[in-house]
C-alpha cells in the first residue's frame, strides 16, 4: 500500500477508534459532577503535551508482545507493536485529546435545559442523548473528528516508536518522508508527499470550519 493510502487508512481507523471513548468521556465530564473528575481531565489531555516519543514509549511498554495488553492481543492474533494496528493506536492516542476537547465543546454548547425538557416529555437519559444531545452536537463532533484525522495524518513520534517504519504496513506519509530524505535522488517523491500533505491538511481545515459553522447555526448561536 502506498504511503498516501496507508496514511488515510490509519487516520480513518485511528479516528473511529477514538470516537466512542471521546463521546462517552466528553459526556461524563461535561454532564456529571464527581470527585476525581479533575484527575481524569489531566490524564485525558496528557498526550497533548507529552513529547510524542514519550507517549510512544509508554504505549510500547503496554502493547509490546511482553506488555500487559500486548500479550493478550497477540494471543488472539492481533499483534500491535510494529504492525498496522500499532500505527493506528499511536495516531489514535495522540489525536484523542484534540477530539475529546472538541466533543466536550460540542456538548457544552447544547443547552442542558433541552435535555431536561426531553426527559420531562418521557425520554430517558440514553434516549435523550441519542435524540437531542448527539444530533445537536454532531456537527461539532464531526469537526473534532476531522481535526483528529488531520492530526493522525501528521503523527510521527509515537508511531515510529510503537510501529516502526515498515513500508506498506506502518509507513505513513511522515515516516516515508523521513526515510526518503536519506535516499539520494528521491527529492521529487518527497516533494510530492509534501504536496499531498498540504492538500489533505487544507481539506481538513476547510471541512472543519464548515462543520463548525453548521454546528453554530444548528444551535442557533449565530442567529
Amino acid at each position: 500500500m502506498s504511503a498516501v493510502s496507508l496514511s488515510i487508512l490509519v487516520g480513518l481507523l485511528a479516528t473511529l477508534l477514538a470516537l466512542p471513548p471521546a463521546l462517552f468521556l466528553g459526556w461524563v465530564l461535561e454532564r456529571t459532577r464527581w470527585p476525581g473528575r479533575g484527575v481524569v481531565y489531566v490524564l485525558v489531555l496528557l498526550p497533548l503535551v507529552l513529547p510524542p516519543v514519550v507517549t510512544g514509549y509508554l504505549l510500547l511498554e503496554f502493547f509490546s508482545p511482553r506488555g500487559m495488553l500486548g500479550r493478550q492481543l497477540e494471543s488472539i492474533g492481533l499483534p500491535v507493536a510494529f504492525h498496522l494496528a500499532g500505527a493506528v493506536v499511536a495516531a489514535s492516542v495522540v489525536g484523542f485529546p484534540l477530539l475529546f476537547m472538541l466533543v466536550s465543546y460540542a456538548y457544552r454548547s447544547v443547552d442542558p435545559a433541552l435535555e431536561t425538557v426531553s426527559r420531562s416529555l418521557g425520554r430517558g437519559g440514553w434516549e435523550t442523548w441519542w435524540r437531542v444531545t448527539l444530533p445537536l452536537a454532531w456537527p461539532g463532533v464531526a469537526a473534532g473528528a476531522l481535526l483528529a484525522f488531520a492530526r493522525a495524518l501528521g503523527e510521527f513520534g509515537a508511531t515510529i516508536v510503537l510501529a516502526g517504519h515498515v513500508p506498506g504496513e506502518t509507513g505513513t506519509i511522515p515516516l516515508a518522508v523521513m526515510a526518503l530524505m536519506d535516499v539520494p535522488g528521491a527529492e521529487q517523491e518527497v516533494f510530492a508527499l509534501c504536496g499531498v500533505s498540504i492538500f489533505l491538511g487544507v481539506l481538513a481545515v476547510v471541512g472543519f470550519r464548515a462543520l463548525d459553522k453548521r454546528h453554530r447555526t444548528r444551535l442557533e448561536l449565530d442567529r
Partner: protein
Amino acid sequence: MKFDLALSLTRPQGFCLDVSWSGDVDALALVGPSGSGKSTALGLLAGVEKHQGHLRLDGVEQAGTPLHRRRMGHVTQDALLFPHLTVMQNLHYSPWAHTLHGEGGVKEADVIDALHLEPLLDRRPRHLSGGERRRVALGRALMSVPRLLLLDEPFAGLDAQRRRDALSVLRHVRARFGTPLVLVSHVPEDIVGLAEHALRLEEGRLVANGAATSVLSAGETRVDNHMTGRVQPDGRVEVDGCDLVTAVPRGITGSVRLACFAHDILLATERPHGLSARNVVETQVTKLEEAGDAVLVHVARPAVAATLTPDAVSELSLAPGQRVFALMKATSISYLGPS
C-alpha cells in the same frame, strides 16, 4: 386534582423555599413578586430539581419517580423547542404522543387546531416568533398527554393584544382537554382568567392562599371576559343569545373569539336612555365575588363579569337573581380571532 405538598429546598446561594399546602383544585396559580420562588416551586412539581418533604398528587407520592416517568407537561418561559426538529417533529417528540389517539380525549388534530399550529408544522423553531414558539411548546406538552400542565409565565413578552389572544386560546384548550394545570404568572388577568385557586409566595414562603380573586392584592384585579360568538348577517355578533355590536372587523364571518375587560362594563338597574354605548342588554345577576378592593358582579347572559366598587354594589342593592342592564361600548369588545 388533589395536591398535598410540603416542598422544601435550600440552594447553596442562600435561597430557601418552604411551601406546604394541600387542596383539591383543577387550576392553581402561583403568584408573588419576582424572586419569590414561584418558578422554583413549579420546577419542583415538574421534578427537575430534588427537594425535601413530600409531593403527593391524587394521593401518590412523586418524589421517587424519575423525571421521564412523571408525565408533567412543563412549559417553561423560554419555550425550549428542539432546534433540529420541525414543529411537527417537536409535537411528536414524546413517546406518549404516539399512543395518544383516544387517550384522555386528546387527539393530534385537536391540539393542532386548538393552538392554530397548522401553518407552522413544517417550520423550524428558528423561523417562529416568540408567541408561536410558546404555542408549539404548549402543544408539545399537551401531546404528551400530561397528568398535570405546569405553565411558567405562559404569556411573558407578548404585547397586550397577543396576550389576550393567547389567554383566550389557553382557556379554550382548558375547556377542550380538561387537563389540570398549575400556572405561574405575575399578571393578575392571567390568574383570574385561568385559575380557581391561588397561592401567594413571598421570599420562598406561602403567605396567602384562597380563591384566585381574593389572593391578589388590592388594585391587581383586572378581569378579562372571554366570549365566543357567531357573526350575524347584519355584522352583529350573537353571544349567549344576545346580539352585540362589537369591534369585529368587516368581512369576518363564522365563529369568533371576543374579549371585554370587566372594568369596561357598566350595570344599571333601569334601562338607560340617551347613551352612546351600543349594547344595552337586559340580564340577571348570578353571583357577587370579592376581588381585592372591588366586587366582581357576574351576570347570566352574556356570561360576563363587571367590576364595581363595593359602594356601587350597595347603592344599587345588587344581589343574585336581580334584573339589571349590562352596558358595553362596541369598541370595548375586542376581536381576538376566529374560534
